């Protein structure tokens, strides 16, 4: 029987690609496929669900789903697997963003892009999170069939109980919280969020900026951001660092506006999560962000303008409601059952084509 084997370099709870892989694994099992999930580095919490890639044996009738998001020694194995292969592409951040802060991260990203080009003839189908990502694949020389596959949003995990103590801490002083969720990384342009907040803080000192995300591996960029916040005289900026799910939920629940100045995103899951929490979104219209927002939210690349929009959202209930209403309509497109159906039909059509 055809096994559907997912393979990814690393799997860890909370990471967007890992969440997608785990959700796909459940979906495939529920749909009656013998599904296998393998990774090279497995977080201890997932050792029962995920098998080590070193023990992976593939047969010609198997279908391999390879999650591509970074450079990995796994790419050397891909051409040698004698089975049907599908790539699930999640984008690779251009290395130039990392060069000033982390030569190692820049090297990994550059390696990932080189591997992406090397693997261009290895797959018979590539599925990407967004049309923007399909463009990246075309640029890398992919000529196999390409299609967009909606991500399986981890909405169920957002319905858990938040960290009550953190929620109290963020709401007790009555400040209006602006939130961005994402690791501290130069492509996310957190410095522009600090500029946005600087403009807002001039007019509304009763505000706070929460930057929820890990700075692991980006210590120098984090230090530069802290220095910049000091230069701007901003005290009400909270860098949460790595945060567990209940803490993240507390941030979403305490926030009133979601702000994103990210310049490079292959999809940007937190935008959909913000819409799930009915938070009005202000985002820079770069890379896949406009596609993810699909006409909802508000696009603005100018920190000063974005600050004025945030202020208006905090004070004008009708404006806020109009923005949120548009986002609620957009949110329907991310319904996990819809994304699941799309993926299963794509997989079914692929398997039929293989047997025809």
């Amino acid at each position: 029987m055809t096994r559907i084997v997912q393979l990814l370099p690393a799997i860890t709870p909370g990471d967007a690609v890992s969440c997608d892989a785990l959700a796909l694994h459940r979906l495939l099992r529920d749909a009656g496929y013998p599904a296998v999930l393998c990774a090279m580095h497995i977080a201890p919490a997932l050792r029962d669900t995920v098998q080590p890639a070193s023990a992976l044996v593939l047969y010609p009738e198997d279908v391999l789903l390879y999650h591509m998001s970074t450079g990995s020694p796994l790419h050397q194995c891909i051409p040698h697997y004698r089975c049907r292969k599908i790539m699930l592409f999640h984008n690779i951040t251009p290395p130039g963003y990392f060069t000033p802060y982390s030569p190692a991260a820049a090297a990994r990203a550059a390696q990932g892009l080189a591997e992406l080009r090397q693997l261009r003839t290895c797959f018979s189908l590539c599925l990407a999170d967004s049309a923007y990502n399909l463009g990246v694949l075309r640029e890398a020389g992919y000529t196999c069939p390409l299609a967009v596959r909606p991500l399986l949003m981890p909405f169920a995990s957002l319905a858990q109980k938040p960290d009550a103590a953190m929620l109290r801490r963020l709401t007790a002083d009555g400040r209006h919280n602006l939130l961005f969720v994402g690791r501290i990384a130069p492509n996310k342009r957190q410095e522009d969020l600090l500029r946005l907040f600087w403009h807002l803080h001039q007019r509304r000192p009763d505000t706070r900026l929460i930057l929820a995300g890990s700075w692991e591996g980006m210590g120098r960029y984090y230090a530069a951001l802290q220095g910049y916040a000091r230069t701007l005289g901003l005290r009400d900026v909270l860098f949460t660092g790595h945060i567990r799910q209940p803490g993240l939920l507390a941030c979403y629940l305490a926030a009133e506006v979601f702000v994103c100045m990210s310049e490079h995103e292959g999809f940007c899951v937190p935008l959909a999560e913000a819409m799930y929490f009915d938070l009005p979104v202000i985002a820079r219209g770069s890379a896949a962000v406009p596609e993810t927002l699909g006409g909802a939210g508000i696009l603005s690349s100018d920190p000063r303008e974005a600050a004025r929009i945030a202020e208006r959202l905090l004070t004008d209930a009708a404006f806020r409601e109009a923005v949120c209403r548009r986002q609620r309509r957009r949110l329907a497109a991310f319904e996990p059952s819809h994304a699941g159906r799309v993926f299963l039909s794509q997989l079914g059509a692929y398997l039929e084509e293989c047997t025809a």
Partner: protein
Amino acid sequence: MELDIEQIMQEIREEIAAQPPVPEPPAFAPESAADALGFLQAHTALRPYRALSGNPGKVFVQRVIRRMLRFLIVPLAEEQSEINAAAVRVLSELVQREEHP
């Protein structure tokens, strides 16, 4: 009737254009010398140990290997930490001389 978001956006843009120009915040420097120095100062001392993770068997083996290599790793880390500390001292003094000649 649904509120026209584009119209509000237009209002905001006109409001900004009509206002006298406000001073822009200082530009973000990717990493100032002071930031880099701060990073060096915070990471002067090498920590030869990392938290071990994995199943108990793997952790045990890693711990044994770590114990066996202690005689080699710890002096190397200490020596490198001393070199780092000296380099950071020199750099700090140069920065001070630059700032307060």
